[in-house]
C-alpha cells in the first residue's frame, strides 16, 4: 500500500494546488469586493438593481440567455485626446510652446481650430498615446496654460458601440448567479441598458425579434407574453406590433410579469461610468 498512499498524497498536493489558486485565492481577493467610486465623482458604483430587474436576472438564468449572449466587454487599449481648457494669461506663449512641441516631437496635429469657439475647451491632439498626451500637457502647463487628457477606450467591441470601457470585476458585484457567457451567438449585453434604453423596444424584441431587428437569429420568446382578447379598453401594456407580427384583430399581446422583469433586467445592464481601473471620457 506504500505506493498507493504515495499517489494519494502527491495527487492531493498537486490537485489541491489548483484549488488554492482558483478557488481559495479568488474568494479571498474578490469575495470581499466592495463598491468603488466613479472616476472624478463622489458617486458609488455599482448600486444594487431595483427589485423587478433583480427578478429579471433570474428569468435571464432560467431561459438560459447566457447560452448565446456574453456580458463582458473587451478592450484592446486606450487612446488619449489632449484638450486645452485654459490659455492662461499669455495665449501666444502657450500656442508657441505647443507648436514647438508639435514640430520637435512629431505629434499628430488635430485640426480643430476652425471649428473652435472662443472661450470653450479646444481639442489639440486626438488618438495619441499616453506618453505623447502627457508630454503635451506638460509643455502647455509649463507655458502657463491648462490642458486635460481625455481617455478613450479602443477595440472592436467599443467601436461596435457595445460599451465605452472594458468590463471590470465590480460590474458583477450584485449578480447572483454571475453569467458572463462564453459565446457571442447574439451581441454582448453588458451595456444593453445604455444602448437600447427603451423598455417597449425590449419587449417587442423579446416577443418578435425579427420585428425590430431584421434577419435576427434570436428565437422569439412568445411564451413570456399573453395573447388575449381585447377587453372593454385595450390594455396600456399591449405591444405595438407591426402588422406582420400582430395577433388577429380583436386580440392584443400583453407581457407577463416575467417578460417585464426580463426587460427591466436588460435595461439595468449598464457599464457606462468611468472607474479607476477602466477610465474613459466622453468625446
Amino acid at each position, binding site marked *: 500500500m506504500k505506493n498507493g498512499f504515495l499517489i494519494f498524497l502527491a495527487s492531493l498536493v498537486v490537485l489541491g494546488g*489548483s484549488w488554492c489558486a482558483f*478557488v481559495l485565492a479568488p474568494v479571498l481577493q474578490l469575495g470581499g*469586493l466592495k463598491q468603488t467610486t466613479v472616476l472624478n465623482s463622489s458617486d458609488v458604483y455599482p448600486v444594487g438593481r431595483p427589485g423587478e430587474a433583480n427578478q429579471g436576472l433570474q428569468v435571464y*438564468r432560467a431561459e438560459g440567455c447566457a*447560452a448565446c449572449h456574453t456580458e463582458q466587454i473587451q478592450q484592446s487599449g486606450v487612446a488619449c485626446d489632449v484638450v486645452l481648457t485654459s490659455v492662461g494669461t499669455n495665449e501666444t506663449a502657450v500656442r508657441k510652446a505647443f507648436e514647438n512641441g508639435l514640430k520637435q516631437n512629431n505629434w499628430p496635429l488635430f485640426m480643430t481650430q476652425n471649428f473652435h469657439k472662443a472661450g470653450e475647451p479646444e481639442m489639440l491632439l486626438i488618438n495619441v498615446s499616453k506618453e505623447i498626451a502627457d508630454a503635451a500637457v506638460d509643455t502647455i502647463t509649463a507655458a502657463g496654460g491648462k490642458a486635460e487628457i481625455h481617455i478613450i477606450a479602443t477595440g472592436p467591441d467599443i467601436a461596435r458601440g457595445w460599451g465605452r470601457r472594458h468590463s471590470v470585476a465590480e460590474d*458583477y458585484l450584485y449578480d*447572483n*448567479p454571475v453569467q458572463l457567457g462564453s459565446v457571442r451567438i447574439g451581441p454582448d449585453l453588458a451595456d444593453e441598458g445604455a444602448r437600447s434604453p427603451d423598455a417597449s423596444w425590449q419587449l417587442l424584441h423579446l416577443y418578435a425579434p*425579427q420585428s425590430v*431587428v431584421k434577419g435576427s437569429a434570436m428565437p422569439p420568446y412568445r411564451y413570456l407574453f399573453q395573447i388575449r382578447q381585447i377587453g372593454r379598453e385595450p390594455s396600456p401594456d399591449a405591444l405595438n406590433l407591426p402588422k406582420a407580427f400582430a395577433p388577429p384583430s380583436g386580440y392584443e399581446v400583453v407581457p407577463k410579469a416575467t417578460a417585464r422583469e426580463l426587460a427591466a433586467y436588460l435595461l439595468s445592464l449598464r457599464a457606462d461610468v468611468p472607474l479607476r481601473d477602466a477610465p474613459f471620457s466622453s468625446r
Partner: protein
Amino acid sequence: MTVNETTNPSAAEIDRSCCVPLLALFGGAALWLVVGSVLGLLASIKFHAPDFLANCAWLTYGRLQPAADDALLYGFCLPAGLGVALWLLARIGQTPIRGAIIPVVAANLWHLGVLAGLTGILMGDSTGFTWLEFPRGGSVPVFFAYLLLALWAMMIFAGRRPALRDALCPSQWFLVAALFWFPWIYSTANLFLIAGPVRGVAQAVIGWWFANNLLVVWTGLVGLGTALYFLPKLGGRPLQSHYLALFAFWTFILFATWCGIPSGAPVPVWMPTLSAAAIALLIVPLLAVFLVTWRTVRGSIKSNWNNTPFCFIGSGIDSFLLSGLMLMAMACPQISRVTNFTWFGPAETQLRLYGFFAMTMFGAAYHLLPRVVGIEFPFPKLARVHFWLSLLGIALLVAPLAIGGVVQGLKLQNPNVAFADTTKAMLPFLRVSTTGLLLMLLGNLLFFANVIGLTIRWKLALLKKFITFVKSPLETIEVRA
C-alpha cells in the same frame, strides 16, 4: 510480475462479478446518450429556423443546449467512465466486486439524479453555471451516487491481490486520481456557487475552474487510464513505456488542473496569465501521451484495422491530442483574440467530450460488456457502423464549428462588419454541423440498441435459469417428502 489475465482462472469470475453494476451504469448511460443527442439536434435546428418550437418554454434554445450538454456529460460520460473504472480496477487488481448491490443502487440513484437534473433545466430551474446546471434535486443524488461508486472502486483497488500491491499499472494511477478528484471539485463548486454563493465575479472563476477540471482533467484521467489499458491489450504490444505513462500522468495533473480561466476575463490579470502559462505547458503531457500511445500501437494498426474497440479508442486518443492542441491555440494571445467568444470553444468541447471521451468509452464497452455479461451483443456488426457514423458525425460537427469560429471571430474583430453579418456567415457552417449531429444520433441509437438488446438477452437468460432452478429443486423436495 506480469500476470497473464487470460490464463488466470478467476478472470471470468471477476468479469461476472461486474455484470449487474455495469449493465445498470451502461443501460442508463446509453439512454441518456440518445436523449442528449436528440436534445442537441433540436437545439441545432433552431439556428436554421428560430421559430421552430418557439412557443414551448421547455424547448427554448437556452434550456435545450445546456440540457443536451449535461445529458452527454452527466448522463453518459460520467457513468460510463465509472463503469469502465470499476471493471478496470477489478480486472487489473484481480479482485471481484463484492456487495455488487451497492454499485447497482448507486447507478440507479445516479440515473434518477440525471433525470431530475435534466427535468429541472428544461423547467427553467438551471443554476445558471455552465456544466453545473443541475438544480439541487439532481446534483445531490448524483453526488452521493458518485461517492458510493467511487468508494466501491477504491475498495476494489485497496483489495487488489497482494502480489500486485507494489507495482501499480499506470491505468490505476489515472483512475484513482480521477475517482477522488470529482467529489472534491463537484462539492466545491456546489458549496461556493449554489449553497452559499460567493460574491461577484469570484463565482465565474470558480465556475471556470470547475468546468475545466471536470471536462479536461476528469475526462482526461479516466479516458487516458482506459486507453493505456486497452491499447496494449487489444494491439498485442506491451505499453511503451510504463515510465513515460507515469510522466504523462504527473505532468497532466500538474498543468491541466490550472487551465480554464479565459484571457480578457474581467478578473485580476494574474488569473488568466497563470492559466495561459499552464495551458502552454500542457504541450508536455500531450507529447508524452502521443509518444506513449504511438510507440505502443505502432506496427499493430494495420492488423487491428477491423478491431472495432481498437479503432474507437485509437480515434479517441487522436481527438484527445487534437482537442488539446485546440485548447492551447485558444490560450495563445494572438489566436485567442479571434477565437474568443466564437464557436471555436464549443467545437473544442465537443471534440473532447464526444470525440475523445465518449469514443474511448464506446471502445471499452464493446470489448467488456459481452465479457461481463457472458453473452454476445445482439447486433455485433452494428458496432462497426456505429464507429463510422460517430467518427464522421464528430468530424462534421467539429470541423465546421472550428473553421466557422475563426471566420466568425475575424468578422467580430472588424467593427465595420455588422453583427448580423457575422451571424449570417456562420449559417452554412452550422448547417453542416447539424448534419454531423444527425449522424452522431444514428450512431448513438445503434449503441443503445446493442446495450439494451444485451440487457434483454441477459434478463431472458436469467429468467430461463430461474425457471430451471425453480423446477429442479421442487422435484427433489417432493422425492424426499
